[in-house]
């Protein structure tokens, strides 16, 4: 009855993993459950699956959990759950009873004959498509992970792309971050020239002016105003922080997008359009004075 003991141990570990207050202990209890599960696999005769489960389930996944918890923080969340615990326990009990009732016929004694096909032949010949899909799945996971864990630059790049793809004539200022300030050609500090560029909180905004707008998302960021820029459209996208964009000066291009993908960098491909996105506002003021 070693299987019974192993199942009891795995179930106990799983219960502890759910009951644990701290996330780290929950992850470690999950690792314990995974190890016991690997032993059950082995006792059932699935040796390769047991090895893989032990190394991946108990090793890799636990490391991933510990890493994620160390990044995200181990805060305990108190408060009532969405479903009352008594109701949830009742539903779970019903589920267990129903499953046992469904599975009550499959209690036939274990066959003693050895399996004809081993894992190797099945995995590499009969189910080669599964292996292919697994490889594709792993690559999908890697790409998704890179996309998710990349710095907010990815969102900014997409914002500037959206700014580029927007139709011309309407100049466009994308301020995807939260506390975007409406900037009538300059930030709330002073020197409000023309070119109304509205950045309503959160989303991109399109300013219908012909003059080029300047987007100043946050606090001390400055934007040198648009000095007589006949550009029909010069979108300036400053998605984050203290980036500032000095829009095109006398830019002849129809569209002179000045996007600031990162915090400091700026790029305005227009003709003779200096774009500055410094961290301090001093440089922008200097440049504005120079202009």
């Amino acid at each position: 009855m070693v299987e019974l003991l192993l199942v009891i141990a795995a179930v106990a570990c799983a219960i502890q993993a759910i009951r644990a207050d701290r996330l780290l202990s929950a992850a470690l209890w999950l690792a314990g459950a995974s190890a016991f599960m690997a032993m059950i696999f082995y006792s059932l005769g699935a040796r390769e699956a047991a090895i893989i489960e032990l190394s991946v389930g108990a090793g890799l996944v636990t490391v991933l959990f510990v890493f994620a918890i160390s990044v995200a923080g181990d805060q305990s969340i108190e408060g009532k759950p969405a479903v009352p615990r008594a109701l949830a326990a009742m539903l779970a009990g019903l589920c267990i009873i129903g499953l046992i009732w469904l599975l009550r016929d499959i209690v036939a004694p274990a066959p003693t004959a050895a399996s004809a096909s081993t894992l190797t032949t099945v995995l590499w010949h009969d189910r080669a498509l599964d292996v292919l899909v697994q490889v594709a799945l792993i690559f999908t996971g890697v790409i998704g992970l890179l996309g998710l864990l990349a710095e907010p630059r990815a969102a900014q790049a997409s914002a500037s792309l959206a700014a580029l793809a927007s139709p011309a004539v309407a100049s466009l200022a994308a301020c995807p971050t939260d506390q975007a300030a409406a900037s009538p050609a300059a930030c709330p500090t002073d020197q409000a020239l023309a070119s109304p560029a509205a950045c309503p909180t959160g989303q991109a905004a399109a300013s219908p002016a012909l003059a080029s707008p300047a987007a100043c998302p946050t606090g001390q960021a400055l934007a040198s105003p648009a000095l007589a820029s006949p550009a029909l459209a010069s979108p300036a996208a400053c998605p984050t922080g203290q980036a500032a964009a000095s829009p095109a000066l006398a830019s002849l291009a129809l569209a002179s997008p000045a996007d600031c993908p990162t915090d400091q960098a700026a790029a305005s491909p227009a003709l003779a359009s200096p774009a500055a996105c410094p961290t301090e506002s001093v440089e922008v003021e200097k440049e504005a004075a120079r202009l």
Partner: protein
Amino acid sequence: MSLSPIAIALLGVAILLGIGFYGLLVARNLIKLIVVLQILAKAAMLAFLAAGSAQEQMGLAQSMVVTVIVADTVVAVIALALAVQVKRRYGTLDVRKLTNLRG
């Protein structure tokens, strides 16, 4: 009372699925939810192996289990990355506070 190993494994499947559903209902932490999903996936693997052992097709069952392990790990990786991003963006992991749309 002498249960066959398959019956024991199926009993474990039922209990693990039950407590997994209980955890899904009561968990409020995103990472805890991912832990519960792992438990549910382990129950599914055990069910595969019990069925394979009953049908004398351990090769097929093991290949299925390997597929499940791979898919489950990828799901865990993506879900943990999502949880980290949620924590960065909203400052909390509480699923009840992640309601931008209030009805």
